[in-house]
């Protein structure tokens, strides 16, 4: 074991960690917001909107993320409207393309997860809310969303972990995140095993932390399913 090499590799890879974290957090943030919009359209009951949401979900769940990313990175520039628009300075950045395609893709999956959560909200509890005079956004904000989110959480944490791993694909559109830097190191040193093991370790630690955080969140939101502990207050 060449510990000197392993530790220097680790240091190099950790320098790329902020890029991975930015990719991850921005795509989860924008993907989550987009997912809320798609979910709202999907359950709106308006045929045009729910049809669009269905098509969106089908396309982004049904095609490989890598191809979506290549289409955004290499494909968008072919359209004059985009190439000569004010958006081009942003859209030609690899980082922007990677975040955009990750967010678009996770929005499709997340929208279905959120819809599943909404379907699990008991009709009786919605009826009780209506009977005290709630409707529209108030009903969604106070009753439907909190219950739906609790139901969606286990599936959503899986999606978040998948997204963390999907950031590795950004290396293929020239974003120098952990996997990209690892590949560059390998092409310089030809030591595939050590470098990729170090990279894998970084992803494992990240996902361990994410899953711990999600478990904690799930635990704190499921007090109503645990035995009553007097003295414990919200």
């Amino acid at each position, binding site marked *: 074991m060449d510990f000197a090499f392993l530790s220097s590799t680790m240091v190099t890879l950790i320098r790329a960690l902020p890029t991975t974290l930015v990719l991850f957090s921005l795509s989860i943030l924008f993907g989550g917001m987009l997912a809320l919009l798609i979910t709202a359209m999907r359950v709106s009951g308006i045929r045009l909107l729910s049809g669009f949401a269905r098509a969106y979900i089908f396309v982004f769940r049904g095609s490989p993320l890598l191809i979506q990313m290549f289409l955004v990175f290499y494909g968008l520039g072919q359209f004059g409207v985009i190439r000569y628009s004010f958006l081009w300075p942003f859209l030609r950045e690899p980082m922007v393309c990677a975040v955009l395609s990750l967010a678009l893709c996770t929005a499709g999956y997340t929208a279905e997860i959120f819809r599943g959560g909404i379907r699990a909200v008991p009709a009786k509890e919605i009826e*009780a809310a209506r009977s*005290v005079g709630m409707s529209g956004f108030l009903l969604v904000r106070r009753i439907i969303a909190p219950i739906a989110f609790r139901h969606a959480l286990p599936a959503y944490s899986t999606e978040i972990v998948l997204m963390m791993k999907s950031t590795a694909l950004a290396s293929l559109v020239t974003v120098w995140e952990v996997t990209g830097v690892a590949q560059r190191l390998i092409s310089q040193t030809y030591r595939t095993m050590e470098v990729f093991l170090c990279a894998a370790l970084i992803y494992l630690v990240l996902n361990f932390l994410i899953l711990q955080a999600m478990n904690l969140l799930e635990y704190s939101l499921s007090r109503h399913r645990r035995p009553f502990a007097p003295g414990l207050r919200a």
Partner: protein
Amino acid sequence: MPGETRLSVRNLRKSFGTHEVLKGISMDAQDGDVISVLGASGSGKSTFLRCINLLETPSGGEVWVDGEQIRMLHGRSGSRPASRAQVDHIRSELGMVFQGFNLWSHMTILQNVIEGPVHVLKRPKAECIAEAEELLAKVGIADKRHAYPAHLSGGQQQRAAIARSLAMKPKVMLFDEPTSALDPELVGEVLRVMRALAEEGMTMLVVTHEMSFARNVSNRVVFMRDGIIDSSGAPEDMFGAGASPAFRQFIGHFGNPQ
């Protein structure tokens, strides 16, 4: 004020597809009235109650709550309320207690009780909490205020649900078979709370199978059959010599209530 009409229903109709469940129901409730609505299952009594606060949309007829008519639009594709905001307002003035309690499972009992006053009536939270604790004491579950619905027995959940409705300071309380989902030994604690409410002068419309409540607590009994009001009157008349043959046959199934 006693004598004021709190609830007025005129020729209320409701059809599901071609099946007519309510065939023209008319009824008034004055302030302080406690009206028991009896009838076999399928007679339309629950639908009648749910049409009053528009959990079901009536196909025809009028509903007035405290002098305000719920405005409806009757089109070719069916009926719908003219104003969502008015429906929300009317609902906030009508307390509804469900057969299955329908408490919000992710909130504590106290949170359930203050939810409506804080978020629908937009009242100060501290004030609502103080009132909620009084209400919970009144229904006998003050010690459960930080428990969640799943931690309570059915009887306790129903009492919590009654406190949740009362927190809105409703003008009329609607009870939809409030004891039908309860184990027999838990029925009494809920009926005691309802009886106390009746004695305080709350206007109540109670769909029930509890003959003793109908006979001893309510001041009017309404018997529904096949979507119409078969007969109605004071309990002493209804359960006495004045009973219609259909009502006599109906109460025959329950034995002779005291």
